[in-house]
């Protein structure tokens, strides 16, 4: 694998990859790894500092902060990956149809994308949550509905660029079925762009999801989620500011890891970027920011 050997030489990229994989595994195996039950309230341990049995101390209800962080990986990180997967799936399917077949289908899909993108993302999410009610499922629905259009557009551009190439034209002219051309000749080359947009939008999505939980619109108490933990910590911000540290740092580590990984992947997929003076800037061309 060319990508892999390129990536292996990028130390920060590898470190990020290891962090990401480790956190995902910890999140999946949360019940085995977490030292305590994240929901067990123990008022005698309120605001306890770090101890041997509670590494990161206890929160305002005496719950184990470390265990809550570990369980929080599920809604904060794993859920974001699912949302990304689904919205990229929809975006890719429509982007491929639009970019490959062009003509009327393309025009229709792109008009719908234009309309979707003409609503600012935050407002759209708030609108959907406002209609459907507060809760994590509705945030997920809102995110999928607002994100797919962006992916569809980027993937369409990428597909179009490749279908203009001679070898695709030749394949079409020689009567190979569309499905076969897409599968064998278009998907592999657009895969690079797909990886880059996927990995570079994870960071901002993690921030947004935790932001909505922080506002109290996402996951509901007593479940652990990083944004939710910060929301709870905010209530005691003036007396116990240290409660903000653990979840905040967890978010920063994960978002930086995903961002570094996105940069490393982009360089690994397109080594020419490595030589140019503006590696940093060019790698941000797909960054989603709403």
């Amino acid at each position: 694998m060319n990508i892999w050997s390129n990536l292996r030489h990028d130390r920060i990229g590898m470190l990020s990859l290891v962090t990401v994989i480790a956190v995902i595994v910890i999140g999946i195996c949360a019940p085995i790894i977490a030292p305590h039950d994240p929901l067990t309230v123990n008022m005698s341990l309120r605001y306890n500092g770090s101890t041997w049995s509670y590494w990161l101390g206890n929160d305002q209800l005496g719950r184990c902060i470390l265990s809550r962080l570990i369980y929080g990986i599920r809604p904060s990180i794993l859920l974001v990956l699912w949302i990304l997967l689904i919205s990229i799936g929809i975006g890719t399917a429509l982007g491929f149809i639009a970019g490959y077949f062009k003509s009327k289908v393309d025009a229709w899909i792109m008009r719908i994308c234009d309309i979707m993108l003409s609503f600012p993302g935050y407002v759209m999410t708030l609108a959907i949550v406002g209609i459907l009610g507060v809760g994590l499922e509705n945030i997920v629905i809102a995110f999928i509905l607002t994100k797919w259009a962006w992916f569809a557009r980027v993937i369409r551009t990428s597909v179009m660029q490749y279908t203009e190439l001679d070898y695709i034209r030749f394949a079409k002219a020689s009567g190979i079925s569309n499905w076969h051309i897409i599968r064998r000749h278009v998907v592999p080359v657009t895969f690079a762009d797909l990886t880059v947009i996927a990995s570079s939008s994870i960071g901002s999505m993690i921030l947004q999801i935790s932001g909505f939980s922080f506002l109290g619109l996402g996951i509901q108490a007593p479940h652990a989620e990083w944004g939710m933990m910060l929301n709870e910590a905010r209530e005691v911000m003036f007396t116990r500011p240290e409660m903000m540290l653990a979840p905040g740092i967890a978010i920063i580590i994960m978002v930086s890891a995903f961002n570094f990984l996105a940069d490393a992947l982009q360089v690994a997929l397109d080594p020419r970027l490595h030589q140019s003076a503006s590696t940093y800037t060019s790698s941000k061309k797909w960054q989603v920011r709403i």
Partner: protein
Amino acid sequence: MSIYIVKRMVLAFLLLIIISLITFAFINLSPLNPAVVVLQAQGIPDTTEELIRQTEQQFGLDRPFFVRYLDWGMACLQLDFGHSYVTNQPVWSTLGPAFVNTFKLTLVSSIAIMIVSVVLGVICALQVGKKVDKTVRGIAFILTAMPSYWLAALMIWYFSVKLDWLPTSGMDSYRSYILPVLIITISYAGIYFRNVRSSMLSNMNKDYVLYGRASGLKESVVMMHILRNSLQVAISIFCMAIPIILGSTVVIENVFAWPGLGSLSIRAILSRDFPVIQAYVLILAISFVIFNAISDMINAAMNPRLRNGL
């Protein structure tokens, strides 16, 4: 250019109509009967069939969809967004001032973002690859990975509680602006300064710079030429930033208890006050479309190559 402006305005107008239709339909997509929501919001626990019918008639909810849409659209043009389900006050009487407050915050932040990104972008481009460049980019990388509300909370704790320099919340004097503007600037300038930097860098490699240097122009004169060309990016950043920030101040407003649209919308969502949500979505979507159109036109005016894109 005038053809471009007309085309762009027609497009914006069509988008506005579609947006208003979607916004209106949104409320009707809700699983809850609006009449029931009204009654619940007014604190009437037992909703009988008769009471629901009565409320439906009172709010005109029993008429056909398109009749209601047209009525609603005409009313909205006169800034009449109906009455809040919760307080029974006209929506605009609370939404109008809130919009102005949010807009003030947005405007100040966009100016700050533009200045900071240009200054940092130019410094980094001049020092490319050196220590300053690397440090600034490294710090920007970490700052953009921070949840803005987290940073805001830490800053409130440090500057307002511990040092007691700045107000913790509200919008009383110019000092209330400092922290929110700082946080918004940090979260966006970290992205936009890269645009300025890369624009400077690509301009530095252009032929006109080589020619200028070859014909013996002073380095400061050459730099002025590069700077002038890169300032286009700054203006487009400013135009892009306004609609984006307008729609995303929700979190920051909430942390600082800023009396703007963000705080208002969250309250409306939590109490399911549909007319307020509807008006909020509509107003923000409209300003988004208008500012995007303006920013496209300004960009097209500065860069004629963009005019064919429509």
